[in-house]
């Protein structure tokens, strides 16, 4: 018997104004999994993440989190239910200190009582953030800002973390460190759904992956299966 999915996206269409960005997209994430969404620029990955987060409301279909339909909820409500998003471009608050960025991560009323404990865990995961806690976020390097963005997401006490283009523009060594942190986060019982352009990397890190093209999910499966797909080979591995 299959366990109940933590997140279940069923047949959603979504629009930006009159432009349809998602077409009949379905996806599910089980508790404890790391799942990747792979696709080129403009394939609808970020729109999908924003639709789960509540910035875009689907015109059709449903999004269920722990069995409840969340497709009409606002972003601040969805965060409180336990879905955090680390957005593309990191978007740390440049003129707040590192510590203030982390504290604001625990803004929702469910996360506030656990602030001290979550802060300790974030510092364990990224000790550099503790060293830099009094600095303005704008003074951090790109990699450190990404760590801050992930740490800030963890402060909201999520059950599911959405990560959009985490490794974009970062050096390979730092990307290794970030993925190591993701594995550590998963060990703490947090489920992860990440968006990535780097196919090789995604297929190494994820338990399962969905491949998107022009607003549709065109393939899905576990990494071993996907590597054997002709389409993937041709498009991404140049075989």
């Amino acid at each position, binding site marked *: 018997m299959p366990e109940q999915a933590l997140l279940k996206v069923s047949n959603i269409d979504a629009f930006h104004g009159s432009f349809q960005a998602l077409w009949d997209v379905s996806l599910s994430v089980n508790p404890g999994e790391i799942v990747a969404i792979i696709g080129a620029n403009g394939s609808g990955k970020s729109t999908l993440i924003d639709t789960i*987060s509540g*910035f875009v409301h689907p015109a059709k279909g449903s999004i269920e989190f722990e069995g409840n339909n969340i497709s009409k909820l*606002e*972003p*601040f409500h969805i*965060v*409180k239910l336990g879905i*955090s*998003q680390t*957005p593309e471009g990191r*978007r*740390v*608050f*440049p*003129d*707040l200190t590192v510590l*203030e960025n982390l*504290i*604001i*991560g625990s*803004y*929702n009323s469910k*996360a*506030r009582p656990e602030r001290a404990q979550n802060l300790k865990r974030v510092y364990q995961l990224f000790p550099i953030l503790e060293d830099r806690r009094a600095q303005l976020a704008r003074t951090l390097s790109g990699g450190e800002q990404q760590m801050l963005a992930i740490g*800030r*997401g963890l402060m*909201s006490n999520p059950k599911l973390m959405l990560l959009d283009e985490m490794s974009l523009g970062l050096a390979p060594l730092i990307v290794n460190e970030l993925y190591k942190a993701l594995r550590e986060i998963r060990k703490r019982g947090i489920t992860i759904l990440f968006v990535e352009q780097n196919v090789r990397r995604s297929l190494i890190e994820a338990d399962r992956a969905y491949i998107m093209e022009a607003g549709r999910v065109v393939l899905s499966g576990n990494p071993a299966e996907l590597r054997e797909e002709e389409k993937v080979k041709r498009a991404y591995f140049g075989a």
Partner: protein
Amino acid sequence: MTLLADLATPVVMGILLGGLYAVIALGLSLVFGVVKEINIAHGDLVILGGYFGYVAMTMLGIDPIMSLVIGIPILFGIGFAIQKYLLNRAFRISMDATLIIAFGISIILESTYQLVWTPMSRGLTTPYALDSISVGPVHVPLVYLLDFIAAIVVMLFLHEFLRRTYLGRAIRAAAQDRKAAHLMGINTDQVYAFTLGISAAFAAIAGVFLGLTFSFTPVSGMAFLIIALGVIVLGGLGSIVGTFVGAIVFGVVQTVSGHFFGVAAQMLAAYTMVLVVLAVIPRGIFGSR
């Protein structure tokens, strides 16, 4: 009498008057920095604060400064409601829509004041209204000193509030990145309503001190809005210290030019100075962006 001694009183009065301008401008500056709205009705909210002090004093016999205990929460509620029920909705259409609605609120407030309090000029004439303080060659009215103390209190409160409370941090976060603020679980509409509420609460304080310092009429709000805009532009957008320094510079230029060239030259001198400063440092004295 040397020029220096001659200048002492107008300079000190200008600095203290700057305190009053700072209290008026801080509320406007906060809303501009966070919500990115220019609240055209801010001056009228200040005047509402003045009338509130007037009613408390003449009808209830309460000292206008003491009446702020009630005036602050009432103005806070009015500001909160204006943002929540009017401006937040207009915001989704366009920024121009908020400007037009704020303009409409301004006209409604001014007309209401005319009906309720008549176009006559009012002032808060307290027992201490005519007291003055002398230190050496400097003679200043007591209420000017109160204006300055009010500015210090409001500034310190705002500074601590923005740094130490969840709501204060949320206000700063929403000002820096609205989408990222949403991702932190912040209801930005609510944060904006609180921001306008706080701005209006400052207007309550500004109104009482304005009434202690000058007389006002139902349409005085616009004149003080324009001064506050000059102060904000001068000090640099979105900086508390900048607004304070801008207000003091504005006040000193006004009183000193008034001292030498008469009252008629005050606004001309002050605004010429704003334009000159902007020509030299377009971001204002403390502007960062």
